């Protein structure tokens, strides 16, 4: 059994999700390689080479791979995939974009967002917004998988570096072009890997109040900011802050849900958090059914009080 893990990065640093994906890969295979694709990303390959227990890091660099275009990236992995029994991506925007394309090119099924490896052919994954867990057996010779990173601990870094092998970058497929990217610069931890998350719902009332009330709390706790779908739909928070079935799946040590009622689609994204705090003035809010600590209070007085007393 040989596994290939697709490194998640921004051409400068390795994303932590890669470390969780390697852990899932080690449960599937005894030999694990990591593939770094991009341009000017030697530093990422060097960082990846320090992940414990790797066989080698493969590094493909070229203009065709600079912006992570799915058509080129899938073709690049395809060129290498037949050497492996498992190809694993983090279940991130990038992983979800590329993995199914690769699977179809290989004519194999894809396993989305696995949360547990039962054996190298059998996996658990959530369905119906986390209301059920499905155990599936994959019979295809190559398993193309996206990994729910909260289901697996991060493999530590700090090993004596494994070899880095350069591989030929594929030619541009000529199907799509990158125009521009708008990524918000933030000193906050990434939502997907944050230890503490402060999340707001529809009860925040407006984008201004969302920021005025929650940013001081997030700053005090060193937390990432999240939001319910209702808050995103209402325009209080950007889309990539969305926690839930169709947004991000998170499992921080502490999740503070403020003014979130707790629709099943939201609970699907955060109910594996270690400790959940819910602040809501509606005693009947479903969020209280999953909270470890429920504070029935007006968020507009409770949150500032919390910030002042922490």
């Amino acid at each position, binding site marked *: 059994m040989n596994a290939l893990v697709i490194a998640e990065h921004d051409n400068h640093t390795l994303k932590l999700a890669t470390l969780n994906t390697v852990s899932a890969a080690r449960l599937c295979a005894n030999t694990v390689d990591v593939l770094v694709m991009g341009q000017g990303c030697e530093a990422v390959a060097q960082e990846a080479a320090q992940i414990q227990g790797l066989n080698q890091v493969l590094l493909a660099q070229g203009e065709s791979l600079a912006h992570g275009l799915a058509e080129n990236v899938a073709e690049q992995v395809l060129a290498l995939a037949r050497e492996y029994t498992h190809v694993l991506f983090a279940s991130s925007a990038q992983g979800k974009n590329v993995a199914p394309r690769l699977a179809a090119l290989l004519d194999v099924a894809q396993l*989305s967002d696995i949360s547990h490896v039962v054996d190298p052919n059998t996996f658990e994954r959530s369905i119906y917004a986390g209301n059920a867990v499905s155990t599936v057996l994959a019979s295809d010779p190559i398993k193309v998988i996206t990994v729910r990173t909260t289901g697996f601990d991060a493999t530590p870094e700090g090993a004596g570096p494994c070899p880095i092998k350069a591989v030929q970058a594929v030619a541009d497929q000529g199907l799509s072009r990158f125009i521009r990217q708008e990524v918000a610069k933030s000193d906050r931890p990434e939502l997907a890997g944050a230890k503490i998350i402060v999340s707001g719902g529809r009860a925040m009332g407006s984008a201004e109040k969302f920021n005025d009330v929650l940013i001081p709390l997030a700053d005090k706790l060193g937390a990432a900011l999240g939001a319910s779908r209702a808050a995103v739909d209402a325009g209080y928070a950007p889309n990539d802050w969305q926690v839930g079935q169709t947004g991000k799946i998170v499992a921080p040590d502490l999740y503070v849900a403020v003014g979130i009622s707790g629709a099943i689609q939201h609970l699907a994204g955060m109910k594996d958090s270690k400790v959940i705090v819910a602040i809501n003035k509606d005693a009947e809010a479903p969020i209280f059914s999953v909270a470890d600590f429920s504070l029935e209070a007006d968020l507009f007085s409770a949150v500032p009080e919390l910030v002042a007393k922490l």
Partner: protein
Amino acid sequence: MKVLVAIKRVVDYNVKVRVKSDHTGVDTANVKMSMNPFDEIAVEEAVRLKENGVATEIIAVSCGVTQCTETLRTALAIGADRAILVETALELQPLAVAKLLLAIVLKEKPDLVILGKQAIDDDCNQTGQMLAALAHMPQATFASKIELVDGRLEVSREIDGGSEVLSLQLPAIVTTDLRLNEPRFITLPNIVKAKKKTLDVTRPEDLGVDVTPRLQTLKVSEPSSRKSGIKVASVDELIVQLKTVAKVI
């Protein structure tokens, strides 16, 4: 521009499904079924493209059981011009659906195919990308804005940390995210009109597609539940609990 929209009939968004006691799946008997919400966004986008003079014809396609005709009628009521049902009672997994859609794409030759990014039943998020691969077409998943610019499609898409803009040659595959649009309410006159629109039925064997599942579901179980928490009466008590009991801050 001819636009094809793929839609799926799923358990309604508001239904909390129950796992069957024999662990073979979830109970969908007597449960309300609806169009997958992301597919509704896909149909809406196609209709807006037509209203703006960009699209000329919209074809809605669904793969599955006979009752998918109801879902297709909904798409026709939103504004699709005609519909195709690929009818089968067999379990369809994303790769099989992508192959069925490919067969329809080869026949209908649309310039653009719009799909929902994810179905809310199996939560797979695969079909659009798979279709793009099989058709050797460019893909833009998780779209928040699409625009025709000089014969190419410019798509803003949601990515981790923000958004990016891609330019795709046509024909292309797009999958929808939440912010793309807000689907309209369906009016009664449009429901009546939809009944008169063409709905063709074909079958996987007519299209020459093998839909045998590649993944076997061994069991479906309840997720582990959290043990119930406590109520705290004040912010002070909350802080004490977090510091001394939970020790998370």
